[in-house]
């Protein structure tokens, strides 16, 4: 679709703009100006680089991303600790993840991300636990290294089946100059397991994103460079690694199911439902498949450089991308895999997809959606929404980098408002102006959106549903979006006497 088309435009009020002889893009730019005019000069100058109206013709995005938050605008971002503990380390199930510092960070992120993992909680699976050094004033004054050493010993005694420990620094650690690396080295020897320090203090960087990077680097230095060994596995040309899948609501499992049905062997899955052994065995894969590029591309680049293992991005959201990704992956292997893949697509998946699309597309066709999530999901789910007839007209990322916006353009088919690091003020303005039929974003955005009468789905936690990946996941995704848009309650907002 183009900037001058007449339907499926960004606004419900498009008729008005045609009467005024404006294209959708022109209107979008006007709205953008209006939003920016609400800021003082300095903030306007900053935010101007984060807003853009793009059409399908755009070849590059002008958004300058991954920059500091403007103070006081009420950003939706989290911190490096959230990226390192909440995203990368937290889901590794057989490690003890220590939130090192005061109690809060670990408390608020306690089991809040729905990284499903098999195993008995507290026995051989520690994902849903909040393990912390609970810093007190004396620790700030005298340092926490001794405390850390002691508590790692205590943790190893209480949880003898653990296969390693991670130390996730909170803000004070970096400020008081503790040497967590020295503690890690000493305690690792003592307990004879990997102890991985991660300097992910919340003040580092500008968002969760640096936390992903730091966590990736910690894995690089303390797993791969330290030559931590995984279990022996049988060599096979079909051995692959699945990374950047955090198993939210079981996502990694519904993805794994497809890969294994294609004839591949997922010898390493991370970090959702992952183990130290699987992470170490990443180097035994013939190919690394990466789902969340933003949070784990650092590892895949490192493994490629160091071990010569190629990596490919793929997307298991929705029929179009699942089929495309399956073929892309199969092309890396021999004819057996390719044949199996084609058979699967034709005999099993296409009929399954068709059933889902037949059921839900008529109920969703023509709806417009605003999608504002972390660093990957907007572009990954735009095609899945499109498979159901839903157009994403406003989008952006909490913590993406410039290359993520470039990658997003590939998926843009209609005039789209893009915003980086959206804040509450901008969101309110956008919702008010464009009144989308559905918003997909996070918990902080959910309730204000619903109050303004717009259906909402949390697209970080799948709103306590899921999985959304794979064939099984698409059925859930479609059901949930239908449930949101066509919820009976949305027709009852206005009382009969008004």
């Amino acid at each position, binding site marked *: 679709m183009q900037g001058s088309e007449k339907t499926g435009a960004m606004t419900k009020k498009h008729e008005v703009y045609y009467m005024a002889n404006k294209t959708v893009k022109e209107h979008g730019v006007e709205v953008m100006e209006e939003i920016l005019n609400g*800021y*003082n000069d300095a*903030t306007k100058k900053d935010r101007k680089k984060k807003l853009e109206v793009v059409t399908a013709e755009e070849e590059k995005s002008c958004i300058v991303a991954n920059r*500091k938050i*403007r*103070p*006081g605008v*009420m*950003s939706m*971002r989290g*911190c490096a600790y*959230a990226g390192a503990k909440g995203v990368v380390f937290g889901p590794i199930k*057989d490690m003890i993840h220590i939130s090192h*510092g*005061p109690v*809060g*960070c670990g408390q*608020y992120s*306690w089991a809040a991300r729905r990284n499903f993992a098999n*195993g008995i909680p*507290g*026995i051989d699976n520690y994902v*849903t*636990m*909040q*393990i912390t*050094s*609970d810093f*007190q004033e004396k*620790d700030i004054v005298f340092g926490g290294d001794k405390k*850390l050493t002691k508590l790692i010993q*205590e943790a190893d005694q*209480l949880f*003898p*089946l653990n*296969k390693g420990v991670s130390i996730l620094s909170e*803000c*004070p650690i970096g*400020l008081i100059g503790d040497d967590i690396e020295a503690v890690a080295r000493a305690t690792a020897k003592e307990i004879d397991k990997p102890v991985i320090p991660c300097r992910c203090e*919340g*003040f*580092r960087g*500008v968002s969760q994103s640096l936390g992903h990077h730091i966590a990736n680097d910690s894995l690089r230095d303390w797993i791969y460079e330290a030559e931590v060994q*995984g279990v022996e*596995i049988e060599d096979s040309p079909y051995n692959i690694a699945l990374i950047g899948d955090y198993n939210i609501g079981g996502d990694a499992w*519904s993805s794994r199911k497809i890969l294994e049905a294609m004839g591949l062997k997922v010898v*390493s*899955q991370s970090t959702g439902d992952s*183990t*130290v052994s*699987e992470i170490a065995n990443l180097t035994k894969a013939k190919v690394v498949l990466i789902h969340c590029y933003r949070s784990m591309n650092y590892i895949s680049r490192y493994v490629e450089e160091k071990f010569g293992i190629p990596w490919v991005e793929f997307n298991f959201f929705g029929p179009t991308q699942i089929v495309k990704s399956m073929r892309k992956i199969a092309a890396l292997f021999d004819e057996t895999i390719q044949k199996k893949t084609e058979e699967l697509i034709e005999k099993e998946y296409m009929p399954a997809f068709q059933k889902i699309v037949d059921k839900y597309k008529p109920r969703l066709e023509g709806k417009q959606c605003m999608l504002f999530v972390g660093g990957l999901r907007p572009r990954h789910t735009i095609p899945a929404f499109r498979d159901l007839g839903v157009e994403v007209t406003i989008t952006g990322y909490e913590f993406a980098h410039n290359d993520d916006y470039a990658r997003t353009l590939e998926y843009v088919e209609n005039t789209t408002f893009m915003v980086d690091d959206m804040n509450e*003020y901008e969101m309110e303005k956008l919702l008010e102006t464009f009144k989308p039929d559905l918003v997909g974003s996070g918990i902080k955005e959910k*309730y*204000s959106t619903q109050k303004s*009468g717009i259906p909402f789905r949390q697209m970080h936690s799948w709103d306590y*549903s899921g999985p959304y990946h794979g064939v*099984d996941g698409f059925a*859930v995704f*479609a059901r949930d979006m239908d449930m949101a848009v066509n919820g009976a309650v949305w027709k009852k*907002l206005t009382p009969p006497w008004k």
Partner: protein
Amino acid sequence: MSEHTKDHVTLFDGKEYQEMFEDKKKYENVETDEKIKETLEWTKTQEYRDLNFAREELTINPLKACQPLGGLFAAIGFEETMPFVHGSQGCASYFRSHFMRHFREPFPTSCDAMTEDAAVFGGHNAMYLGLQNTYELYKPKMITMVTSCMSEVIGDDMNSFVKNAKEQGFIPNDLPVTFAHTPSFVGSHVVGYDNTMMHILQQMGQKRDHKTDRINVIMGFDTYIANFEEIKRIFKLFGAEMNLISDPSETLNSPTDGHYKMYRGGTPLDDLRDAPNSKATLLLQKYSTIKTVEFIEKEWGHPVKVVNPYGIEGSDDLMMAISELTGKPVPAELELERGQLIDAIADSYYWIHGKTCGINGDPDFAYGLSRFVTEMGAEPVHVLVTNGSKEWESDTRTMLDKSEFGKAAQLWPGKDMWHYRSLLFTEPVDFIIGNSYGKYLERDTGIALVRIGFPLQDRHHLHRYPTIGYKGGVQMLTWIVNRVLDDVDKKTMYTTSYDILR
């Protein structure tokens, strides 16, 4: 439309997935089933309990959050007030998410998003811009600032920062900006509530010569939104005027009507300013208001009463305190309500009397609940409060010793939910009362969980019911007895005891 889609609730039970999980084990380096079973059983023993209680530095599944969270809760209850975090952005986002998962309501909080440069040069520039943008974009009538541990560790001087922000024109001179130091490495969220409330009163209160006929009421870190309505109703029945200081009952219970409003209700700022001139102050929590009470007693010099308004005795204390402070008799309507609570307990207590229980949660709540269960003849065996102080322990001990049902109770201040797990395996009880995190213990031990407390993230709308006063008593009794009966049903489902009459 009727055909069910399989989601995570049932999808993974399927044979295909189960086989996949089994196959995945060969890559996981998972222990043998025997070893896992053996370890699981060991964690249930007295030996493990001893090891667990011997730990000195490790904290596992604590029941406390950090100071700024409590501070924000105090802040959100004032007229058009924007809570503000001086520190890292991540903290503000965590606080907001935590509250929103509990209340299922928007919880605005601004932040000056300090980063590494602020760690080196101080957070003043971030604060200036933060205040300016917050004021311009969200037009608050007041900004209430708390600190995260970053700004505490680098030692920012909030007083001069706020002063400079005004002098240098980032915000108007007459915009009230209160600030409190709320270091995360001291105390817990209830202390943060206290610090913030005290500083709001100190920085906003305007003492005059005249006294009003009002009673200030401060609820403490009370997340039961209906309690704010309940206390208003009780005062109305007394025919007494109150000044409810921090009242989030509108903003955290707002309608979905197509129009989101960031600010709703709250204590009018003029009433806040006038608070020192009320004739007395009544506080409904003790451990979240220690400094606040000290301040009011010293600076405002009017009578101060602190009550714990749960259960029969607690509600009696509340009524008598109001009566004493206002000079008005307890109205007949409230006496009727008292009778209704007694009536409800008389109807139900046979299912509760003699049962043992565990209670965990914030100190005031745990104190009140453990007294309430003894009023129904239940015996609290464990009362576990991660953020419980020595004072809390001695107060609770004294109170429980007065009841034949409370004498055997063991108090566990400073302990966490992993300690609790050991306690429940070695000294089991019939039911436990606490917040959502208790569900892990319910799963591990099979002991029924009654959800009362904060946060409640896995059940809906419980915070919309009152827990204080006689009506609150009936509500809590209902939750407790029906959970106990659900448990009886579950246990007797395939026996002759599966009665329709309970």
